[in-house]
């Protein structure tokens, strides 16, 4: 038996890979949660595409400033050294290759690194692209945090994306509730996997073929 990671644990795992001194943009949902799990003492500059370079933790009730929100429309604080800029400069930072890593939510990732994370094709609902494409095309590295399967048990790690693409061949690493998977030249390579889970268990929940690293590690987050 194995116990899938919860959202906080997934965010925690992704946060462990954020390196000192890097500039990082976090997408809505689980990715922004990761900021609170970055290892203590590591200085990371969180960029928010509406114009914050150096976002701090979410504001407490009495710290809230209606003029200071992040790209997820949350009231936030500023970290030491923060700067505030306008949207064109912020996207020049993203599109001009000045962001080291972006961590985004995902609907589907293909084994060649194609990402689909912007359009679920909900009938009668309009589309929302936001900054997802700019980040997926412009950031130095694109990492995805998402559930390994959909709510109804369909795989999300696919041979080819079915939903409209955000960007082709951009994803380098995927953090799921079951595993940490890299996108390599030849497809998916599992780096970490839940304890108690077999390779067959993971493959049966994945459409694309999986390779397993020789030095595969157990995925063991703290209780969160």
């Amino acid at each position: 038996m194995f116990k899938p990671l919860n959202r906080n644990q997934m965010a925690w795992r992704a946060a462990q890979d954020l390196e000192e001194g890097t500039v990082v943009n976090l997408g809505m949902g689980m990715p922004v949660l990761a900021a609170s799990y970055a290892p203590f003492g590591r200085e990371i500059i969180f960029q928010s595409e509406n114009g914050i370079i150096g976002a701090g933790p979410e504001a407490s009730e009495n710290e809230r400033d209606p003029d200071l929100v992040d790209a997820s429309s949350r009231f936030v604080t500023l970290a030491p050294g923060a700067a505030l800029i306008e949207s064109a400069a912020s996207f020049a930072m993203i599109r001009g290759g000045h962001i080291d890593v972006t961590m985004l939510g995902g609907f589907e990732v293909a084994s060649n690194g194609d990402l689909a994370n912007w359009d679920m094709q909900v009938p009668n609902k309009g589309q929302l692209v936001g900054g997802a494409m700019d980040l997926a095309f412009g950031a130095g590295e694109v990492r995805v945090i998402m559930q390994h399967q959909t709510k109804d048990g369909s795989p999300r790690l696919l041979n080819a994306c079915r939903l409209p693409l955000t960007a082709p061949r951009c994803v380098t690493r995927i953090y799921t509730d079951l595993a940490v998977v890299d996108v390599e030249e030849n497809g998916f390579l599992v780096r970490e996997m839940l304890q108690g889970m077999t390779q067959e268990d993971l493959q049966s929940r994945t459409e694309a073929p999986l390779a397993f690293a020789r030095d595969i590690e157990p995925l063991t987050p703290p209780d969160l």
Partner: protein
Amino acid sequence: MIDKRVGSVSEAIQGITDGTTLMVSGFGGAGVPVDLIKGLAQSEVRDLNIVINAIRFLETYAPSLFQDRRVKSVVCSAFRGRDREPSNYERQWQAGELAIDLSPQGSFSERIRAGGAGIPAFFTPTAAGTQLAEGKEVRDFEGRPCILETAIKGDFAFLRAAEGDRFGNLRFRGTQANFGPIMAMASKVAVAEVASFSEKPLEADQIHLSGVFIDRILVAPGTGA
């Protein structure tokens, strides 16, 4: 003497007519020109072409624009309504009554920036090979496919700042600036509502947007955000 202050919302929006292209700044509640948007809703103009990052903010402050079908087209990066049920604008889009130009937020910003900077079009890799590249010219630059994006210009722009002076110089607070500076630059008439007016000219090195890009200043201290 230069003094760009106007005395009322109706004066601030004077000249907006049927068919006007209007750019509206604001992100997540910060820098949203609420008084100007509400003033627009009270006017009777129709067939508006709106340029706004997230259309839902316009509906929040000016629901009548959509109830009365007064918007003809929208350029935005976020067209989805918040609720599970389709919003009025999603229904109008489905019925073919509202034209949408959905643009990645960085392309949206850069198209507006280009509009204000005298650049009619530019190539970018963003969106190449995706649905949002359909119908756009593709050329390879630096070994990557890039798509041709065209500039966006406006007749009017609405934005909000923390402080302004009689020259139209502006200072923003927090994340208020967002699309305001580029929209002001890309529009023939830029209207800024400001939380406070400085009788003395703002200090030159404290100015975030030069008054050259601003035509009218409306003092609107009451609105939040």
